[in-house]
Structures are given as structure tokens and as C-alpha cells.
């Protein structure tokens, strides 16, 4: 590179030619217009959409989380309620059972006492009847027996035994034919 060569071009590099300015302006204008009207709007739109999508996703997740929390709380509450209800029912049932058992015991006691009392009364009554009947019949029987014994031949042992047997069977049939009083 020689200084003469640079000077020989005699063109001051700091002074632009008109065509230089014009082509520069055209190029800058084209880049500016494309950036201004097309590229930047598209870029901003994409960034906004992306931000919106991310924002929406976060909000949705928060909503779902809140719903889940609420559902969990509700389930826990229901569970606690259920447990309390079950405990209450159990306590009630126990109380009721105890009540029933106590009632039954009382009832059974009363019944048994009633039955025993009734049986005693009946036994007493039957005894009275038997006593009265015995009293009224013993005399008759004795006289009847004595008269028969006297009426028959006392030598005949066989006969004498028949008389006694008949007497007894008569006695039996009489007592079975006559129903027990108070029964």
C-alpha cells in the first residue's frame, strides 16, 4: 500500500456520493419496515401468548389444587362425622342393650316369682282339697270296708283278698273319676 495509491483515488472517504446515501436509505428503510410492521408484532404476539399460556397453566393448577384441598377437607370432615356417628350409635346400642338386659332380668325375676307363688298357691289349694276329701271319705271308707269284711265269709282267704283288691280298685277309680279340685 503506497500513500500515492490512496491519494490517487482522490475520493474523500468521509464525503458520501449520492448513490451511496440512496442505497443506504433504501436498505435501512426496508429493514426498518419489515421489523416494524411484521417481525416485532409477531414476536410480541408470540411472547404474549406464551406468557398467557403459562399464566393460565399456573392459574389452572392453583385452582385444581384448591379444589383438591377443599375435597380433602370435606372428606376428612365426613370421615370424622362418620366416626363420631358410629361411636354415638355404639354407645347408644350398648346403653340400650344394658337397658334391655336389665328389663329382661326384672321381668324374668317377676315372672319366676309369680310362677313360684302360683305353684305354691295351687299346691296349697290341692292339699286343702285333698285334706277335705280325705276327711269326708275316710269315715265312709272305713265303715264300708268294715261292713264288707263282715258281710263276706272271713274263712275264704281267696275271697277276702278279692274284697280288698276290689276295694282298692274302687278307690282308685273313684279318685280318678272325681277331678281334683282347684286344678
Amino acid at each position: 500500500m503506497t500513500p500515492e495509491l490512496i491519494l490517487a483515488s482522490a475520493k474523500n472517504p468521509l464525503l458520501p456520493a449520492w448513490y451511496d446515501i440512496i442505497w443506504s436509505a433504501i436498505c435501512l428503510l426496508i429493514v426498518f419496515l419489515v421489523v416494524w410492521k411484521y417481525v416485532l408484532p409477531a414476536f410480541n404476539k408470540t411472547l404474549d401468548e406464551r406468557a398467557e399460556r403459562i399464566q393460565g397453566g399456573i392459574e389452572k393448577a392453583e385452582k385444581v389444587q384448591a379444589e383438591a384441598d377443599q375435597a380433602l377437607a370435606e372428606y376428612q370432615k365426613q370421615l370424622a362425622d362418620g366416626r363420631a356417628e358410629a361411636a354415638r350409635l355404639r354407645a347408644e346400642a350398648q346403653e340400650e342393650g344394658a337397658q334391655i338386659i336389665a328389663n329382661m332380668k326384672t321381668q324374668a325375676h317377676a315372672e319366676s316369682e309369680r310362677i313360684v307363688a302360683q305353684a305354691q298357691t295351687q299346691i296349697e289349694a290341692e292339699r286343702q282339697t285333698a285334706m277335705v276329701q280325705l276327711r269326708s271319705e275316710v269315715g265312709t271308707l272305713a265303715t264300708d270296708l268294715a261292713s264288707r269284711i263282715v258281710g263276706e265269709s272271713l274263712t275264704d282267704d281267696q275271697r277276702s283278698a278279692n274284697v280288698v283288691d276290689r276295694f282298692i280298685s274302687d278307690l282308685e277309680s273313684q279318685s280318678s273319676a272325681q277331678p281334683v279340685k282347684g286344678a
Partner: protein
Amino acid sequence: MGTLNAANTMIQAAESGYHGPSMAEFFPAAFLFEGTPFEMNRVMLIRVIATVAVVVLLAVWAKRMKLVPGRFQSAMELAMEFVTVGIAEDTFGKERAKKFMPLIVAIFFGILFWNVTKLIPFLNMPGTGVIGLPIVLTLTVYVTYHWAGIAEKGLGGYLKDSLILPGVPWPMHILLIPIEFITKFITQPFTLAIRLFANMMVGHLLLVLCFSATTFFLVDAANGFQFFSIVTFAGGFFVFILEMLIVVLQAYIFALLSCVYINAAISEDH
């Protein structure tokens, strides 16, 4: 054009020897509409190609944008967020950045692509290496920050805010007002344009210098000098890697300073 042709003849005259880098490379012969304001030469074509590339890339990205991004979309989103959040919103704040976002994004991606053509084989020339594009970019930012300042505060309020520093004893203003004026209205735009332009131009010249020297040592130099081609190639390779950083860095710096200047114009406090 006459001088340019003269330069070309000189280059041709030196054909057999060493091809040094030349400013003429930034002003190649026109091949379309010569002599009109729409004159098309190699550098202008490279700008148009880079413009088409960045527009197609951004448009395809925007067209295929999905809620769940793939690899391409993720990478582009990362780059875009570097600009929208890392450059614009960090400077302006989220709300005020919206208004200037298209400009900042266009400036960053535009400059990145117009720069990067210097590293692409067969293009090998930065679109920003000729002063017109840095000037147009700077003018756009310059008009934007003055306009935004006036829209925000009114003409008087804007001039007062930008020229008069608060909390300074009044005699100092005799000195400070001209300094502030020169800073806001001349130095800022000038440095903004020159920084980008000079970086790109010099980077290109360095690359050409290194690789043309490599070719010279390898092909034309006398025996025994071939060794130097290794040195110059290593230098060129280093510059190439450095330029990969610089093409991104310059786009970043330009976009960031644009934000800073606009923000200073619309902010209440200094």
C-alpha cells in the same frame, strides 16, 4: 471517475508485483445506472444482498413462530431478546422502549448483517465500510432523538434540558452551553458515524493487507521469503477472528448508543 480509473490503471500496472489494499476497493466501477443517483456498484450490491438476507431471515422466523419454539426459533428469540431487553429495555425502561423498539431492532440487525459481509467469501466487503450507510443510520438516530426530545418537552424545554446543566454557577454556562451544544449536535452524531465506518473500513484494509501479503510472499517473492507468508497468514487469521467479534460489537455499540442518546433527550433528569 477519472481519478478512480487512474487508480485502477496504476493497480493494473503493478499487476506483476504486490497488490496492496486500496481505497479504490470501496469505490468500484458501477455496473448499473451509472451517473444516476441509483448507481449500482459492487458495495451497493453487497448491501442489497445483506438486506435481503436479514429480511428473509427475520421474516421466515416471524412466519414460522410457534408457541413452543424449535432450535432456530429459540436461537433467534435469544438474539432478539438480547436487543429488545439487553439493549433497549435496559436503557429506556420497559414502557418507553416500545416506541423506539422497531428502530433499535432494525439498526442492530441491519448493521450486523451489513458488517458481516466483510467476512463472507466472495462478498469480502462490509456494507458499512463506505460512509453513506453510517451517515444514513446516524442521521436517522439524530433526527429521532431531537424529534423525540422536542415532542416530549417542547422546543424550549428540550433545548434548556439538553444545553443547560443543572446545579452549575451561572458564569460557567458561558463555557458549558457551547460545549453541550457541540456535544449534542455535532460530536455525538459524528463519532457515532465515524466509529462504525472507521472500524469496518480499517478492518477490511487489515484483512486485505494480511492476505495479499501472504499471496505475495507465497507466489511472487524471491526464494527464502516464503517463510513470511506463514507470519502474514497467521496475522490475517487473527484479524479475521477479531473482526468476527468487531462486527457484532459495532452493531451492539451503535444500537446501545442510539438508545442512550434518545433516552438522554427524552429523560427529565441528566
